[in-house]
């Protein structure tokens, strides 16, 4: 039997954000049934989020984090992807696309999504004789650029970014993280000339300079100095600037050449009609930064998403009348921590245009609106952009503005939300991550969901990056009228058992409930709730210690296999290295294990340990046996580790023996369950090299043989300096008060509440009163409970010798028929 392939062939040139998004849109309209899809991507990767490149450069994201579609996505969706292959030409008569090697791919429909490249200004000395960039000159457009830039920064002192636009500022931010002196060299008279007016630009310049970036305005670069590598810049006014490297960020140029080469109309980009189709060829479309629609070429993502949808509607026949009418451009972004929103025009253009303005340079706040016939045609917000969502909506929908202009700039009293949401059309997208419209939210409320949480759970609105949460909440409130239900579960310890933490503890003790299933049985009407299980397990273990009846299904996977799950289902293994102290024999063993199990990534962690990343589940027991080291608990909601500085043995500043203390702390508290993870550190002097002051619990040695104990510090998603709990004069007392604090937190912290949240909720005064001054008379009991918990410790990696459940470490059980 043979299968007739009646599918048409769709070829997509370009695997950037536009190309890949368009294919996603086509697939979601059933296009996979209509077309065999082939894509050409110049870069050797899947498709990634170019907007996030600056986070990769500055190191806050890994390259892996920014993939939108990894390579296996293409396979799963039957899309053939030629990576590392540049499409070189199109032969329209034969309907073929050629790659660099002359290999042809035939198409019925073709989409050009070649994007754009960095514009290279005509500066003397930018290139070497052979045509390549002079060493030290970079552009900033791709993952490879990020890598090359970061490799080159080694040993360099200063960098200049040419171009003070949005991309230039982002590049500057990234470069700063390498410890370089960073200069921004800009031809214009103010930064971000496309989005800001001179007033806002001046404030932004001050902000940037406060952050240590030097800004040089009205500087036209003539020459790049240095014979065989970059040594500096010379400007048209003959002044010079020394620097070791240069990032060119002077704008972008659409990649239209392949279209021009086969006779399609191109101007600034590839000209398309309202269906994103070339007027010269009914079977060729263009989308994204390479396309020119009604004279506009867009360099932002929002227009690109709109174009992709129209193209997909049209090419799949889902809506043959779909038409793109151009986009209103609005951006909201954070440049080096400064929040900026900009939309529409930046200066009044007509005599009757009304300008509403507020400026407070000292605080870095600037707001300016341009209003025409009662509607918003442009706005700039800098510093305080709280009104941006409302204004962007009014701009996008062209809705009439309220008479009281002050309300447009500030929230005064009760803002008249009803006007906003009544006028907002149902198809306005509220959650941009998950594509949820106002209409979908209202429909969900009408279907009976009457709390923000219920609506978010059911629509996934607000569950992506989270930035639209407050708007989702407002819309739910508005849609409910007065009928909003407060979701009582926000007060529960876990969502599935309707009790607050004190009530829950009381009930557990009263009924003598020692397992998670017993809690569901007695306190939740027998109804199991998956999400509530780990929180209950943690609490029961804290309350019952050795008597706790462990049910493995109540644990998150990390705690079932004592390792941290990775995105591909493999695990990360971090053995205990207390205080960051190791030795050659241990390192050799770790190295042997890494080689024997072909561990793909060996990484030093922030907690002074060694992470073996990418270990297969079935290898975990033998990895632990070969390591012969205890678990470092780097996966649990538990005590994690205690970092330490060099301490007093070697360091010439050391006042206290931070290493010895760290070892004792680790030995005592290792593996303790807690509401959330706890990261600790000890520092041998107030120079605080081990960052003990920003840890959940930290100890810092001070003159006179004393230790300061810090609690509630944070330096992750939140940054907070810890509060001093007390100052003590012996290591024993450090252990005593730390233990008492941790026990108090274990009993009173909400599930998944870090110590900084706990301290801020209760107040340090209250915590100090209980833990140090024993205001409630429970100090002795806390110490006793802590001692019992410590005694119940057992190294979970011993399960390498005695698995706890059937097939505990099997990634897949093969069944032979």
């Amino acid at each position, binding site marked *: 039997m043979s299968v007739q392939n009646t599918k048409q062939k769709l070829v997509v040139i370009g695997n950037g954000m536009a190309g890949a998004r368009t294919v996603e849109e086509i697939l979601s309209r059933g296009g996979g049934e209509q077309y065999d899809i082939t894509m050409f991507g110049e870069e050797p990767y899947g498709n990634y989020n170019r907007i996030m490149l600056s986070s990769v450069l500055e190191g806050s994201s890994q390259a892996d984090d920014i993939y939108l579609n990894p390579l296996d996505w293409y396979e799963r969706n039957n899309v053939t992807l030629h990576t590392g292959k540049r499409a070189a030409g199109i032969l329209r008569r034969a309907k073929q696309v050629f790659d660099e090697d002359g290999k042809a791919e035939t198409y019925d429909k073709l989409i050009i999504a070649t994007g754009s490249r960095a514009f290279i200004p005509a500066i003397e000395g930018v290139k070497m004789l052979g045509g390549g960039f002079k060493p030290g000159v970079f552009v900033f457009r791709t993952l490879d650029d990020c890598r090359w830039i970061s490799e080159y920064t080694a040993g360099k002192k200063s960098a200049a970014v040419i171009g003070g636009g949005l991309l230039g500022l982002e590049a500057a931010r990234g470069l700063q993280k390498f410890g370089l002196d960073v200069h921004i060299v800009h031809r214009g008279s103010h930064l971000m000339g496309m989005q800001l007016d001179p007033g806002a630009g001046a404030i932004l310049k001050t902000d940037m300079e406060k952050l240590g970036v030097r800004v040089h305005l009205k500087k036209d670069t003539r020459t790049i100095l240095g014979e065989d590598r970059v040594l500096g810049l010379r400007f048209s006014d003959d002044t010079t600037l020394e620097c070791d490297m240069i990032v060119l960020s002077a704008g972008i140029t659409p990649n239209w050449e392949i279209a021009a080469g086969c006779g399609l109309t191109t101007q600034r980009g590839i000209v398309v009609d309202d269906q994103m189709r070339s007027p010269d060829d009914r079977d060729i479309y263009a989308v994204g930064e390479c396309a020119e629609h009604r004279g506009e070429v867009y360099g932002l993502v929002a227009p690109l998403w709109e174009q992709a949808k129209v193209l997909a509607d049209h090419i799949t026949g889902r809506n043959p009348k779909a038409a793109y009418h151009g986009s209103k451009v609005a951006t909201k972004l954070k440049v080096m921590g400064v929040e900026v929103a900009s939309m529409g025009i930046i200066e009044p253009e007509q005599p009757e245009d009304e300008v509403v303005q507020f400026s407070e340079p000292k605080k870095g706040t600037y707001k300016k609106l341009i209003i025409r016939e009662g509607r918003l045609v442009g706005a700039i917000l800098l510093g305080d952009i709280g009104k941006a969502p409302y204004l962007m909506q009014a701009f996008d929908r062209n809705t009439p503005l309220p008479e009281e202009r002050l309300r447009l700039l500030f929230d005064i009293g009760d803002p008249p939300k009803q006007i906003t949401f009544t006028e907002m059309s149902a198809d306005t997208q509220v959650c941009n991550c998950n594509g949820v419209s106002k209409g979908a939210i209202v429909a969900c409320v009408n279907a009976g969901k009457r709390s923000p949480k219920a609506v978010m759970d059911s629509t996934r609105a607000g569950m992506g990056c989270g930035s639209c949460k407050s708007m989702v909440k407002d819309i739910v409130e508005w849609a409910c009228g007065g009928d909003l239900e407060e979701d009582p579960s926000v007060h529960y310890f876990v969502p599935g058992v309707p009790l607050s933490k004190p009530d829950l503890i009381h009930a557990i003790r009263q009924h003598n409930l020692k397992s998670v299933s017993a809690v569901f049985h007695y306190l939740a009407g027998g109804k199991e709730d*998956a999400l509530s*299980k780990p929180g209950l397990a943690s609490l029961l273990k804290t309350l019952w210690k050795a008597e706790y009846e462990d049910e493995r299904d109540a644990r998150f996977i990390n705690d079932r296999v004592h390792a941290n*799950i990775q995105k591909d289902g493999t695990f990360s293994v971090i053995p205990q290295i207390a205080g960051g102290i190791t030795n050659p024999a241990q390192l050799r063993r770790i190295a042997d294990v890494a080689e024997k199990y072909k561990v793909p990534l060996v990484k030093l962690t922030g907690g002074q340990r060694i992470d073996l990343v990418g270990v297969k589940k079935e290898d975990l027991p033998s990895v632990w046996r070969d390591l012969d080291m205890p678990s470092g608990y780097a996966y649990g909601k538990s005590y994690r580790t205690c970092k330490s500085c060099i301490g007093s043995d070697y360091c010439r500043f050391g006042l206290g023996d931070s290493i010895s203390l760290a070892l004792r702390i680790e030995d005592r508290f290792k593996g303790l369950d807690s509401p959330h993870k706890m990261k600790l550190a000890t520092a041998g002097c107030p120079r605080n090299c081990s960052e003990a002051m920003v840890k959940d619990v930290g100890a810092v040695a001070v003159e006179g043989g004393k230790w300061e104990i810090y609690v509630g510090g944070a330096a992750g998603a939140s940054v907070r300096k810890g509060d001093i709990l007390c100052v003590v004069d012996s290591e024993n007392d450090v252990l005593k008060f730390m233990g008492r604090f941790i026990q108090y937190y274990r009993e009173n912290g909400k599930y998944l509440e870090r110590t900084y949240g706990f301290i801020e909720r209760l107040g340090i005064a209250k915590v100090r009163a209980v833990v140090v001054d024993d205001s409630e008379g429970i100090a002795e009991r806390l110490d006793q409970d802590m001692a019992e918990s410590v005694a119940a410790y057992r190294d979970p990696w011993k399960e390498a010798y005695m698995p706890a459940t059937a097939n505990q470490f*099997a990634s897949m059980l093969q069944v032979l028929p």
Partner: protein
Amino acid sequence: MTDTAMTDTAMELRVARLDAIPPGEGRTFGVLGEKLAIFRTREGRVLAVQAECPHRGGPLADGLVGGTTVICPLHGWKFDLSTGDAIMGDCGLRKYPVRVDTEGHIFISFEDAAPGAAATSD
């Protein structure tokens, strides 16, 4: 004892004993080139679905189970194992019919599982 049974519409295959899966947990099985996740709920039900989360391929058998709900360990998509429907997420799961005999053997039927069940196109 036969391990497989053929009917007009489906092939039933014995894949495991009940005690291969601890109560309240799931395990991944490779059968006939397909990967499936089989769960044994605390109430004693045995349910089988595709092994990988339709979102980013997360191993569903490693997820937390409550009642007949499973939560993917990677990004928290939620599914009802008894229907295959998504509770949080865009796309449901392929389900496989399960039978457990009196001796505690788990049988799965193949081909009968409607392939369309996994594909939605909203």
